[in-house]
């Protein structure tokens, strides 16, 4: 299978800020790659390089085998982009926005019109189609921007945080649209902060931090890479957090993560032995009152936390 998206040693500096520091990537045709990483990791910067908006300082990027730096015009005719911030024209209607994009992709008048109506329908914007975008809500703009990325049925699609700002129903609808596109053979690179989204959509996930890919694999591979299972304890009162933490430190295989607010403690444990019973006994000995105790497989959240040293949620809330 040939590669639809490739990057070799991409480097990009903004003055003294390092955005990318030797990013490598390869996405086979017809697959979905999810980019995951904390704020400022370099996700948007890589998307901008792949979509010809930005020139890297060093390194190579190819889309469908075409060099992005030297044959930008050819690359543009095969890609579709929806950037991190919706890029739609406030003073045009939703329909006019899509039709303009269609015309600039040189689809021809009739095709462009037909395709625009089709997408407005697909993204549940048909009722608002002939209203100026300035009257749209944030999520509606986002959906229009996503539709604009798909006007020309591009073979390689880049979506930068496509579901940020969408309500749950729109999110699921977009997932369906994406699944359809991929079933028809499109290649997709998407960035996201929603780990469940990466888990659900991406064939492969690349975790990026400080401008480099620090882990790569399927969701399952990444989960087993961080190892073991997770033991989660919720204690009854704040003063019991400290004794509970010392118990978990003794039993667990790594650092204990503590959420003071929810009185929630998490620690990686080995999957052998009678961990649950042992823990409960030890906690009881320390007179810790336990509200909840579970043993679970690691989630992508754990992967994210273990690999980047900080939780995805914390980062997005900043």
């Amino acid at each position: 299978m040939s590669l639809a998206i490739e990057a070799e040693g991409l480097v990009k500096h903004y003055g003294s800020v390092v955005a990318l520091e030797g990013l490598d990537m390869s996405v086979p045709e017809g697959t979905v790659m999810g980019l995951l990483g904390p704020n400022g990791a370099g996700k948007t910067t890589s998307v901008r390089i792949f979509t010809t908006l930005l020139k890297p300082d060093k390194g190579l990027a190819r889309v469908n085998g075409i060099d992005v730096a030297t044959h930008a015009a050819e690359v543009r005719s095969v890609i579709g982009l929806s950037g991190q911030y919706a890029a739609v024209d406030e003073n045009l209607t939703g329909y006019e926005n899509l039709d303009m994009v269609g015309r600039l992709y040189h689809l021809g008048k009739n095709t462009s019109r037909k395709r625009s109506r089709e997408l407005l329908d697909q993204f549940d914007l048909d009722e608002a189609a002939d209203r100026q975008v300035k009257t749209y809500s944030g999520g509606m703009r986002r959906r229009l921007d996503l539709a604009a990325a798909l006007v020309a049925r591009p073979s390689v699609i880049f979506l930068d945080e496509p579901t940020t700002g969408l309500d749950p129903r729109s999110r699921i609808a977009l997932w369906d649209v994406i699944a359809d596109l991929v079933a028809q053979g499109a290649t997709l690179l998407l960035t996201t902060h929603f780990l469940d989204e990466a888990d659900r959509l991406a064939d492969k996930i690349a975790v990026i931090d400080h401008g480099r890919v620090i882990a790569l694999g399927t969701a399952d591979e990444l989960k087993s890479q961080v190892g073991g299972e997770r033991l989660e304890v919720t204690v009854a009162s704040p003063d019991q957090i400290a004794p509970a933490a010392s118990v978990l430190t003794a039993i667990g295989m790594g650092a204990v993560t503590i959420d003071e607010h929810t009185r929630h403690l998490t620690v990686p444990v080995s999957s052998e032995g009678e961990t649950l019973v042992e823990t409960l006994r030890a906690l009881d000995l320390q007179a810790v009152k336990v509200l909840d105790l579970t043993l679970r497989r690691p989630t992508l959240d754990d992967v994210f936390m273990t690999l980047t040293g900080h939780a995805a949620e914390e980062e997005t809330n900043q």
Partner: protein
Amino acid sequence: MTTIASALADGAVVAKRNLLKIARVPDLLVFSTIQPIMFVLLFAYVFGAEIVIPGVNYREYLMGGIFVQTCIFGATITGSGLANDMKNGIIDRFRSLPMARSAVLIGRTTSDLLNNTLVVVIMALTGLLVGWRIRTSFLEAAAGFLLLLLFAYSISWVMATVGLTVSSVEVFNNAVFLVIFPLTFIANTFVGTDGLPAPLKVVAEWNPVSAVTQAVRELFGNTPSESAVSDAWPLQNPVLASILYMILILAIFVPLAVNRYKKAASR
């Protein structure tokens, strides 16, 4: 399609989009017209009573200057429009599409030219109301309007370069007005250049605004008597000088603007 044909076709799509904006946000057009109308009234009725230009009615003399000033102000929307498009990420959208690199600028300057045409028509009507008259043939008058619009068009490319260079619409407006005011006042726009102190007089005589203003006055037949016009070459050969200035401006700023567009990074 050939490259040029496709650039023009893409440019037309972009121009249509800009014109829709003018139609939907009419305040833009209203404000770009109110200011010059105010200038006409102010100079015709307030200052004009005190200003005497030998050989010509002041209100007729005034209109040439106001026309040129209006065109320069009108051309600023090229820059503020582009700065705004950068901010909204539309330029990013355009830059990711397989359209001609020059199309956004061609579309922008073309729609602004149409906008300016409308403004010039409104100005001409206002002028006729306050007593301005064309005293030449139809062809000369047409040439006068054509020259004005071509000048507006070339200034649009200067504004495009600035608009793509600054970081926001606010900065653009402040930066541009700092330049426009001296440019349009250290000239023969409202009074002759002869009364100016020596260094400013030279600036005024070689200012493109003066050449175009003088050319327009000649083509409309609103020229003062020979003694009231400076001997400087651009003012003695204003039509030729205007054309040379425009060629020079376009030769510098078209490539500069296209280059800025290619490098434009909105965020």
